């Protein structure tokens, strides 16, 4: 599971925190959607959870391991799919997967079996011998997803995973996310596609200006606000937050 307690991030000498006393608890077997407008603090939060960014205050534990105190132990439990298309694209698909397997200490037999399986699932087997630099955006996203799954992590974190994927690939990814959660893993992802969040997530959190505005199951949020869709909930909450900030 992922646990964030009073997590705050202030960049440099900025007066405004990018993430402000954030508390979150994502249990095992849950698909958690992290929603928010551009610049809300989603990627900053994800970078702190994955141990790429120092926390200014607070604590984060991944599978019970404190990311600050034992970063290696915490990171070993994470499979991370970044939002950026920047990756080690001079490697071939095979070499990239082998690199990830080496980093996470996956034995030879298991890595072959998993690589074959996921490459077939994501329909990338034929391109695996090519350098990643020759891949399309969607193919890069797929190899990144497979790289994050090669050690079948108990915690899977995806930053804007649907970007660049065609409908079929997006469907396969959503099915995989559900399957991972059903197998007991924690799946945490950020997205702008609210329909995806509404259909896929067990719980969602809405963040704006670094603060958590609302959190719960999609049904909870709809009942709480009386809205008909997650999109309406999202727009209402973020607009209210923007107005409150303007008044201040």
């Amino acid at each position, binding site marked *: 599971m992922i646990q964030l307690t009073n997590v705050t991030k202030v960049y440099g000498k900025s007066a405004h925190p990018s993430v402000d006393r954030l508390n979150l608890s994502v249990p095992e077997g849950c698909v958690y959607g992290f929603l928010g407008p551009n610049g809300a603090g989603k990627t900053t939060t994800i970078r702190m959870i994955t141990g790429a960014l120092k926390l200014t205050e607070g604590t984060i534990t991944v599978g019970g391991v404190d990311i600050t105190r034992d*970063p290696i132990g915490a990171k070993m439990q994470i499979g991370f799919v970044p939002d950026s298309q*920047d990756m080690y694209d001079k490697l071939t698909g095979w070499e990239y997967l082998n690199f990830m397997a*080496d980093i996470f200490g996956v034995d*030879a037999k298991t890595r072959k079996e998993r690589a074959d399986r996921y490459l077939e699932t994501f329909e990338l087997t034929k391109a695996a011998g090519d350098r990643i630099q020759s891949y399309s955006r969607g193919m890069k996203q797929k190899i990144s997803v497979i790289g994050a799954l090669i050690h079948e992590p108990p915690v899977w974190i995806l930053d804007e995973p649907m970007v660049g994927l065609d409908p079929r690939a997006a469907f396969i990814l959503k099915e995989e996310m559900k399957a991972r959660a059903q197998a007991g893993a924690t799946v945490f992802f950020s997205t702008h596609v609210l329909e995806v969040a509404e259909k896929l997530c067990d719980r969602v959190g809405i963040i704006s200006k670094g603060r958590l505005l609302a959190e719960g199951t999609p049904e909870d949020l709809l009942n709480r606000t009386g809205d008909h869709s997650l999109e309406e909930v999202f727009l209402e909450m973020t607009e209210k937050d923007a107005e409150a900030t303007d008044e201040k």
Partner: protein
Amino acid sequence: MKNYWILTRLMLKNTLASMNPMAQGEDDGKKKGGKGRALLLIILMLYGVGFMIWFEIQIYNATAAMQNPLLLPGLAILLGMMLTLVLGLFQGLSELYQGKDAPFLAVLPVTSRQAFAARLTSLYVSETAINAMILFPAFILYAIKSGKALPTVLTAIPVWLLLAIIPLSIVALLSALLMRLAFFSRHRETVVMILSFGIAIGYSIFITRFNSRSNEDPNAYFNAFLNNGLVDNFARIFPPAGWAAKAFAGNVGMLLLLLGVSAACAAAVIALVGPSYIEQALSTGESTVTAKSSKSDADMRTGTLFRALHRLEWRRVLRTPAWLFNGLAGVVMYPLMLGIGVISGFSSAPEGSQLPDLMKIIPSPCYIICFGGLLMAMGSMVNPVVSTAVSREGGCWPFALALPVRQQDRFTAKLIVGIEISTLCSTLIAIVAWVLTRVNPLILLCALVFTLMINIAVSAVSLWHDATHPHFRWANETEAIKKNFNQVFGMLYWLAAIALCCIPLFFWLDKPVLLMAAMIAIAAAEMALGLWLLYRTANRMNMMEE
């Protein structure tokens, strides 16, 4: 024509912006030492220009005493043209064909010829700026000392402006030929690399053989060169340099010839290479490794964490043409050029003054270890791979930090690759030195151990600097290494390491054993300091960004 100007302006602005030391280090909105970099750049420029002026004054005084004051500007002209021709081949390849903007150019409503002309102009401007630093001190000195200020200005400006055109046209043509030859290869980058090294080395051998054939007695040759053979010698080495030298001396006919040939060369290369330029630049970015029908066991061989990181570093350097050219070119070229230069220098020396004979009069092998070691340590000066190792991660850095890898392990992999490259250069120098001098290999091995200490020290400090002041926001792979100010810091650290090792020379020059012991002790201390600095930072970084 309008499109050509717009593109040229854009490319020049981009080049200037990427070279701006104030802008480097602005990652995540934080300015890191921009003012410090700018100050350092100014100091370095003042130092460089100051050194050049001092050096040229010495040459002018020597040549003026021999009644040949035109030698200095002539040498500067030759140097400018040669640098553009030889070094321009590597720069031309990476600037013309290895930028990431080919897809951007391809969709613009401009012709391939306009895009090529704009790129060539941008390259011309940067080469002409470099030439200004070489030519102007010599021209100004000549104008002052000879009292011919106005005629000098009238000839110097057009010569300066025309100087880079012919060599650049040759470079552009050769680059296009290389890319075309390599197009059908599965290992395109390697083919281009080998061919371009071959051209540069072949040209160097041609020049040295040509010169050494022209005169059997080097002293007579040198006197002839100084007193009456100046322009002819230039013309023999590279005819346009001869025309430029004569044009500078006031020969209007030669100036017109230089102008005409320059214009013809530029027009010809634009007409020949221009139409297929974008297509070729696009093909360079394509993957050169084709899909395998099935994977082999080697594809999924298990390895340790260090091996995975080490292999990743090497693969990225070897498969990124811009990093391969700029990172390994000097490492391979420097020993070879050194060898060719020394061979040509001694090839016509009289019996008894050949290098192996000269080595016999050195009183102690300790001197060979000390000075040979310092010479071989040049390997870490010409190695920008380690001083840009963290910056070259670029947008991959946040992902790299999310991996369960200790910063120490990551830095060790980068450091080892840097040391391997520097030591490759040092070893090549040692081999060249052995071939030339036939010194006992054990002595050379000892010198190599001394060099290794310096290489480790310089690599560790350079990597520490890049880790603490990374430049992640580069637009293309060439910028990541070539326009990264951290590689200048790498050279400065090398200079500092060598300077410190030279301190014992002032005290114990006549006591070889003591001198060697002191120099090795200093190198060991530098190595320990460098490693301590690097790993202390790695511990503090705790794998996370601030």
